[in-house]
């Protein structure tokens, strides 16, 4: 039995991958050590301002460069340089064999990408938005996520699904949904959701290198935002571990757990809470939805005793419901007040701006909920 397992293709794939230098995804040391060379317009300590869009572009370019099995396909990714210009320049650099414009046929090209992954390639499948991935969610879940298990570990599916997810301004109900909870609930998928440029680059590279199907939930409104990027993160061996959250701001009074665009809103709210009430909030950027870094959340909760979750998805059966349930299961004794959440409202996104504002968390929503929780 043992030997037969060894001869399974999956086992062979895994061992061959280990033999190549292509899989340092979980080796944190690789990025920490080699901070020798700074590129571009280096300011203090080699830190550079990079937009999320460029960080994603860099991650894609580096992985396409490193791994011939990797290719990207999706609508308008090649000649048009991406609907949101994330894939800008990739066609010129890597050619039409590896940067592929598909017809507008989500179910079809997602299935095709999954097939290519089953056959040993490492596709990166871009959705113009995850709202359109609803057309092909069957392929993502039934064909990609479940196959490794259904085959008893014989058949891996190394594929990355990426694209903008969640809130985008003024595009109404069919183009604004947050799917974190949908994908986060599926065993067999890994799900990451970057906020900053370092997140974007490190998580996307980790997703591409991970041997499983990984869903990368970006946000359109973040693409144009610039963040400082450390020298280490500018290197082509920079990856972030999937399943590890980041404490963006340490604090002792309140734990705010958030993801994606809401991390920035939470940080602004935390600054306001400090200034207004002298409250020290600890802001945790989840980075990864599945696996979820329960340890970091509970460790923080142990310190602060109070928990608030901020996300833009629907409240019912969502990311925040899950985190609050986990806090109950693992951290009940540390809670000094009932945990609270700020989420998207339970409504299809309206078009009119005033109503739209009421449908998603705003900074003042976060501040006032925190103040209420803390009784300040």
């Amino acid at each position: 039995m043992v030997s037969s397992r060894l001869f399974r293709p999956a086992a062979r794939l895994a061992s061959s991958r280990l033999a190549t230098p292509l899989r340092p995804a979980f080796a944190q040391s690789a990025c920490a050590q080699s901070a020798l060379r700074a590129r571009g317009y280096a300011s203090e300590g080699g830190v550079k301002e990079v937009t999320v869009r460029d960080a994603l572009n860099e991650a894609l370019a580096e992985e396409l460069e490193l791994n011939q099995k990797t290719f990207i396909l999706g609508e308008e990714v090649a000649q048009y340089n991406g609907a949101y210009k994330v894939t800008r320049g990739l066609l010129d650099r890597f050619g039409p064999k590896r940067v592929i414009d598909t017809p507008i046929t989500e179910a079809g090209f997602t299935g095709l990408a999954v097939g290519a992954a089953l056959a040993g390639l490492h596709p990166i499948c871009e959705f113009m938005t995850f709202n359109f991935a609803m057309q092909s969610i069957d392929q993502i879940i039934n064909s990609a996520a479940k196959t490794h298990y259904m085959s008893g570990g014989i058949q891996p599916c190394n594929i990355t699904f990426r694209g903008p997810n969640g809130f985008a301004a003024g595009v109404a109900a069919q183009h604004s949904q947050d799917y974190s909870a949908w994908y986060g609930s599926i065993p067999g998928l890994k799900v990451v959701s970057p906020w900053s440029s370092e997140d974007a680059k490190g998580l996307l590279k980790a997703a591409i290198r991970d041997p499983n199907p990984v869903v990368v939930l970006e946000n359109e409104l973040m693409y144009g935002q610039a963040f400082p990027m450390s020298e280490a993160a500018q290197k082509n061996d920079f990856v972030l571990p999937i399943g590890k959250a980041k404490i963006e701001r340490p604090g002792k009074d309140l734990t705010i757990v958030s993801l994606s665009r809401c991390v920035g809103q939470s940080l602004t709210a935390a600054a306001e809470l400090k200034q207004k009430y002298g409250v020290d909030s600890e802001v945790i950027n989840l980075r990864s939805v599945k696996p979820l870094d329960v340890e970091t959340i509970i460790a923080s909760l142990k310190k602060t005793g109070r928990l608030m979750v901020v996300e833009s998805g629907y409240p019912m059966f969502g990311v925040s419901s899950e985190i609050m349930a986990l806090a109950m299961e693992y951290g009940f004794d540390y809670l000094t007040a009932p945990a609270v959440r700020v989420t998207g409202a339970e409504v299809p996104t309206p078009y009119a701006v005033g109503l739209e504002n009421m449908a998603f968390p705003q900074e003042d929503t976060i501040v006032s909920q925190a103040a209420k929780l803390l009784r300040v």
Partner: protein
Amino acid sequence: MLFRTAARQAAPLRRQAFSPLTRRSVTTDAASAHAENIPQEDDKPFTVRLSDESFETYEIDPPPYTLETTKKELKTMYNDMVSMRRMEMAADRLYKEKKIRGFCHLSTGQEAVAVGIEHAITRMDKVITAYRCHGFALMRGGTIRSIIGELLGRREGIAYGKGGSMHMFAENFYGGNGIVGAQVPVGAGLAFAQQYNEQPNTSIVLYGDGASNQGQVFEAFNMAKLWKLPVLFGCENNKYGMGTSAARSSALTEYYKRGQYIPGIKVNGMDVLATKAAVQYGKDYAISGNGPLVFEYVTYRYGGHSMSDPGTTYRSREEIQRMRSTNDPIAGLKQKMLEWGVTSEEELKSIDKAARAHVDAEVAEAEKMAAPDNTDRNLFEDIYVRGSEPKWMRGRTVDETFYY
């Protein structure tokens, strides 16, 4: 089915009478029809002879190359197209002034399709389309002020400020779908209901050349044919699905043949008269129990895919300029109307002027409309049918829970 073999040989007598036997393709000339002996009276019918390059067909006889019309109808068509274009130009301006948010897809250049269809059907027939829907909303009875009001996110907008540019609805107009291709099976469902209710009506289902490859389009074709649904599928082929030309997205760009087992008609979608003739013919075919047809309206969009797309990176400026200057549906109809003596230069000018004044007034009214009050009642209304709502819906926080 009836037409398949015998008819194809016998039918195009008229075509042969006019032109050599070489293989032709459908023209996009918007001024290719002929008419003479125009009556004095505004509402007395006369016959227009369409160009023999107006249609190409697949497994079906071509529509008649003649069309009965009146001076009044031609003027109405002209007015409709001018108003539609003026409305889209207003939307363009308002978007650039940042008064319209999000996505905004304009149909400038494609007016003859929406207008031609509407003049071939009745208000009892049903229409569904994708997100390039302002013109169809107008033709289906939406007012300009309600359409522009919606774009501005106003309470008196056609969808009360909830839907925006992509989601407009009116009686027997079912949107305004933002998901590429999703409206096609939904449209087959509209026809299913017409058949179920034994109504002598058809459903017009529109999608772009980009959407034509979606799997569900073919799933809808199959059911429609299987159950002989009175549906006219119609690909508005404006040559580009976003920035991807038809040839780069579609293995077969003869979209009217893509129903395989469904007959198809390719029509000059720049010519409002040819469009009307084809749809009228298709409607008769469909409601006579023959089942669906697949139309291809050959058209062209002057602008980008949406306001954020300049529309010049994947096609040449010359191409756009050429279509605008030589194939424009409005200029084409205008030329014919003058040529036939349907109207005078002065009368056309007064139609133009009146249409412009009307649109401008409507836009001004729309700009005066109030935005919805930012109340939770406005936010949560209409998620469910009134009176059937759950007791409550949750807001962003537990305190914001809304009780109906």
